[in-house]
């Protein structure tokens, strides 16, 4: 006899999970250009369109620069717009990323984070998204396919609420190509959650003509940029509110960051992405041996929840920050953020250590995290 299971329980790759979420959202326009390891997202979505399961206008373009440019045009015209990319593709988009955020266009873009050449490497790390961290996009990290699915749906709402573009970031291959359990929502529930999108102002609204991205000189440009920063700061509470609404329909709660075993922790690890899952297992083992260790998993990286993070870290005697990206010539991004937040608070008497792991898809093992917590790793690289 066939097992009666909840049909919404699936085993999907992170890429397919995002494609499913997009199908349920039903964007109007999706300009696409393939790049590993993001390709499964647009490939799966193209199949939905071909099979008549989605009626999105997919535009095949000749490069990522064109994909994001077409997304800018579509979004300015008032269409609910998504695209997806990775690595060199994101780098090629760089110029237009600022145009999308400067025009305050709510484009949603899942990114399967991957190393940047040279040498050529197609595997996961956070170099690409860290290179775009100052581009005015909201950046939301997901740990696994379940979070990838959930945050794609949350991200669409957040983009439209904040009038800012959103990157939903998964680890290339570790999450994009790993089949794992997830629970999808009912299609109708997702439609209701994201609602109909009606742009406040759009190019196609000929009765109320507007212009996007026009000239702004010394007398106004600065103010535009201050407004953008304000919008980004407001996105923090908007995210909290939207995540809460999402919890009400899904039972899955997301916050600015996830706290795992931090309550009485002397040592707290800080990181984002798929490594957090491995770390949770390591923490359980360390806890069983009496080590008071916890984890803060960064979810919202832009805007960076400095105040809230500081509070969560306030009890720690040692903070171990793990970056999957470098800032060659300075300290890596997460570490720099944490140290700067600590300085603002004048919190002292706490050791903050920086480690770099997983560059170019280098595996991270639970045993390495245990060694790290036990002070057995020399130097700053988990290589």
């Amino acid at each position, binding site marked *: 006899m066939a*097992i009666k299971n909840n049909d919404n329980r699936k*085993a999907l790759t992170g890429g397919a999970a995002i494609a499913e979420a997009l199908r349920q959202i039903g964007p109007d326009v999706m300009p696409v250009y393939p790049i590993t390891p993001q390709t499964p997202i647009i490939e799966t979505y193209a199949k939905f369109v071909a099979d008549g399961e989605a009626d999105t206008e997919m535009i095949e373009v000749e490069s990522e620069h064109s994909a994001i440019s077409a997304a800018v045009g579509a979004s300015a015209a008032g269409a609910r717009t998504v695209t997806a990319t990775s690595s060199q593709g994101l780098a090629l988009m760089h110029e237009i990323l600022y145009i999308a955020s400067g025009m305050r266009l709510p484009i949603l873009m899942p990114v399967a984070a991957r190393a940047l050449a040279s040498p050529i490497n197609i595997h996961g790390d956070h170099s690409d998204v860290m290179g775009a961290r100052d581009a005015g996009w909201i950046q939301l990290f997901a740990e696994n396919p379940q979070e990838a699915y959930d945050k794609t749906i949350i991200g669409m709402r957040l983009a439209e609420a904040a009038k800012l573009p959103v990157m939903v970031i998964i680890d290339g291959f570790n*999450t994009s190509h*790993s*089949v*794992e359990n997830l629970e999808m929502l009912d299609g109708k529930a997702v439609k209701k959650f994201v609602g109909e999108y009606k742009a406040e102002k759009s190019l196609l609204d000929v009765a109320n003509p507007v212009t996007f991205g026009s000239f702004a000189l010394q007398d106004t440009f600065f103010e535009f940029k201050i407004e953008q920063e304000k919008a980004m700061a407001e996105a923090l509470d908007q995210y909290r509110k939207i995540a809460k609404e999402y919890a009400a329909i899904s039972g899955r709660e997301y916050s600015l960051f996830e706290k795992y075993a931090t309550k009485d922790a002397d040592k707290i690890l800080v990181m984002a992405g798929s490594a957090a899952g*491995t770390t949770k*297992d390591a923490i359980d083992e360390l806890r069983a041996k009496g080590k008071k260790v916890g984890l803060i998993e960064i979810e919202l990286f832009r805007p960076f929840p400095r105040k809230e993070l500081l509070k969560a870290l306030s009890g720690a005697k040692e903070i171990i920050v793990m970056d999957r990206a470098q800032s060659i010539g300075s300290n890596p991004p997460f570490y720099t953020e944490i140290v700067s937040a600590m300085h603002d608070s004048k919190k002292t008497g706490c050791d903050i250590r920086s480690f770099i792991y997983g560059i170019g898809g280098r*595996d991270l093992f639970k045993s390495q995290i245990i060694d790290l917590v036990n002070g057995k790793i020399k130097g700053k690289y988990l290589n």
Partner: protein
Amino acid sequence: MNPGIIGSFKDCSRICGQSFFLWFPALALCGIMIGMKYHKDILEVIFYARGGQGAKSAAEILAQSALKEGKFVQSFPSFGPERSGAPTKTYLRISNREIRTHEPVVDPDIAVVLDETLLESEPVTQGLDKNEAIIVNTEMTAQEVKNILRFDGKVYPTAANRISMDIVGQPRPNTVILGKLVQVTEMVKLESVLEEFRNIFEAKVGKEITDKNIAAIEKAYDLI
């Protein structure tokens, strides 16, 4: 693989397989039973194959079958350069509780080798102890395989290519060998695998080829 874990896993799938949610207390017990042997309640498999042999599809069929039985699953390829003929590794985890780790499988309970030429070039017994097992697609005897591997655990030679040629008429060892893997581990029920195979392939390859493939999987499952 330790006979204990096979036993526990068998018991586990019998007790909890179909009614994961109804039998939660029994499930917890299974966890403890597996946990006593290995301090974990998770079964981990590595598939060694060559690019294009379909190890990834095989692992995914098992993952989807286990999902339908209410289990937690994880399956991912070792992310080397993907080209036809290159050695590949695919990892599979099946568990009674949420799988959070994203590290590659380092301590498998069983390994599956889809191409016998990998026996000498790849470390296929890495992480396996004498109580654990390896399934090899080969015409060799268990002793012959053991001699090559210098491995004193259990060896299950399975002529998956021949079975596939005889029944399907094509060399498709990846799904055939699932029959043996399910027989040895009982990680999922055979019916679940067959049902999943039909779900995935019938629309693509037609009923006749699907039926033949299913017969081949059953044949491998019935091998002594």
